[in-house]
């Protein structure tokens, strides 16, 4: 069966109606729903299309899905300087409650790419999903912060983007198009995820960006790994404004989510 695309329902929800989401109803009554946690920053914009494709695939397979934007990102209220790690976790809890209400399903799964995967893993304790599927999640915040800093430094002197290299001051406090508050930066730098007590499936691109020690800790706690046949250009300056598209990911993630727990 094919989900009707015009059935996708855009909405605002949350305590102050400040969170934006799009609900994808299933084609038939469902028993499990999927909450799609978005990445942050430019990863969010680049993977927008892919998230929509995944949500449509899930709805067509009979699993309702909710995509949403964290406070300070996308169409949700707030500025990018308002984004905080703990607020992202609270937003995920609110989105899970909204999805349970919209779908009538008590059982839900979480999916997330990059920082969206990290949020899904960290929010599991509160949301209590049946499973978490994380695609190339950020498991070690200090490494991630260092890589984005280096990318930002390369960006400002990229004379294919700018007529002339820009000063460090002009690019300070930002990561690839988004102003980052010092508190979020600190929260991410200190990020070290503990394995959740629910079932975890890692989807890794062919050249994983996850460091092995953190990955091993998850696997030692029962996480299983699915490896894609190709790499994903998450942190490449040349592809910063090119959409992340992966039919293999959509097929793989929707397949894993359809499996019985």
């Amino acid at each position, binding site marked *: 069966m094919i989900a009707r695309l015009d059935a996708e329902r855009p909405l605002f929800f949350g305590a102050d109606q400040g969170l934006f989401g799009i609900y994808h109803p299933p084609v038939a009554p469902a028993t499990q729903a999927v909450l799609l946690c978005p990445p942050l920053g430019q990863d969010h914009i680049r993977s927008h299309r892919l998230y929509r494709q995944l949500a449509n695939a899930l709805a067509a397979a009979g699993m309702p899905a909710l995509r949403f934007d964290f406070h300070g990102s996308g169409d949700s209220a707030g500025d990018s300087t308002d984004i905080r790690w703990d607020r992202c976790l609270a937003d995920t809890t609110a989105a899970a409650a909204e999805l349970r209400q919209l779908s009538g399903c008590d059982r839900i799964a979480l999916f997330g790419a990059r920082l969206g995967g990290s949020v899904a893993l960290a929010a599991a304790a509160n949301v209590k999903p049946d499973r978490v599927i994380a695609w190339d999640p950020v498991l070690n915040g200090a490494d991630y912060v260092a890589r984005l800093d280096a990318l930002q430094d390369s960006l400002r002197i990229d004379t294919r983007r700018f*007529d002339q290299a820009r000063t460090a001051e002009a690019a300070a406090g930002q990561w690839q198009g988004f102003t980052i508050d010092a508190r979020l930066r600190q929260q991410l730098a200190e990020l070290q995820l503990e394995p959740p007590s629910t079932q975890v499936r890692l989807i890794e691109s062919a050249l994983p960006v996850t460091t092995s020690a953190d990955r091993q800790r998850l696997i030692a706690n029962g996480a299983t790994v699915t490896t894609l046949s190709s790499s994903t250009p998450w942190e490449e300056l040349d592809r910063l404004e090119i959409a992340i598209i992966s039919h293999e990911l959509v097929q793989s993630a929707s397949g894993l989510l359809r499996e019985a727990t």
Partner: protein
Amino acid sequence: MTEQAFRFGRAGHLVGIAGLPSAASAQTGIIMLNAGLVHRIGPFRLHVAIARRLNACGYPTLRFDLSTLGDSAASDESLPRAQQVRADVAEAMDLLGKQAGCTRFVLIGLCSGAENAHLVACSDPRVAGAIFLDGFAYRTPGFLLRHYLPKLANPVRIWRFVHRRLRPSGRIAAPDFGVVVPPLAQVRAELADMLQRGLKLCFVYSGGTSEYFNHRRQFRECYGAVASHPGTTLEYFKAADHTYILEGDRRQLVDTIERWLLLNLPQVTAGGGACPTISTTHLT
């Protein structure tokens, strides 16, 4: 100010977010068009920043996805792309008219968004103004001199140029926003017609257009009388890139858009007066 999500259009296929200021009714509404394939929030959330700044000045806004872009679906009609864009934008104006009482509209678009703004401004009588971000421009003899002369005087640049020609790099090409550039004479005539009809036009070029625009003077070289018309405004942000990736550049652009609107198409609310929330902070 409140933001509301809408599914609208002739096939219920379009998705957009309306920013509605507290005034019951306002004359001028702002419609923001997709930049390339980026969904309605705009590159680095530029459209959200513009919308909320303008909402604070009393302008209702709608950022939405054209058919097949972002969260919007296809309309299931076999219309040529131009006709589909016109129909989509007309329905966006209908929605903002219904929600906020707007009767005239300003279109804002970057790159392919500017191309679409131009397309609609040519034919829809409700369009009162347009802000073209990196819209059409044409290489002129002046452009070529400014572009190549410094290279000829610099042996290092000559070597780099030859090197690039002989050894194509494996770098990824800049994003292709799929802009189709019509002939200069056609665009010049269409712009002249818009001005004749009383539209206000703002052209903003960034340093990201350096392959086809490299000096303010080039605007006059391209467009002649259109450039000197009182309804025309030109801004050139040479330091900025095409999609305004740096916060300071983005803020400068949003300031410029706000200032231009307040000066050229001041808001009129239901009571007939100018919007009282005009801020002078950004007018200096």
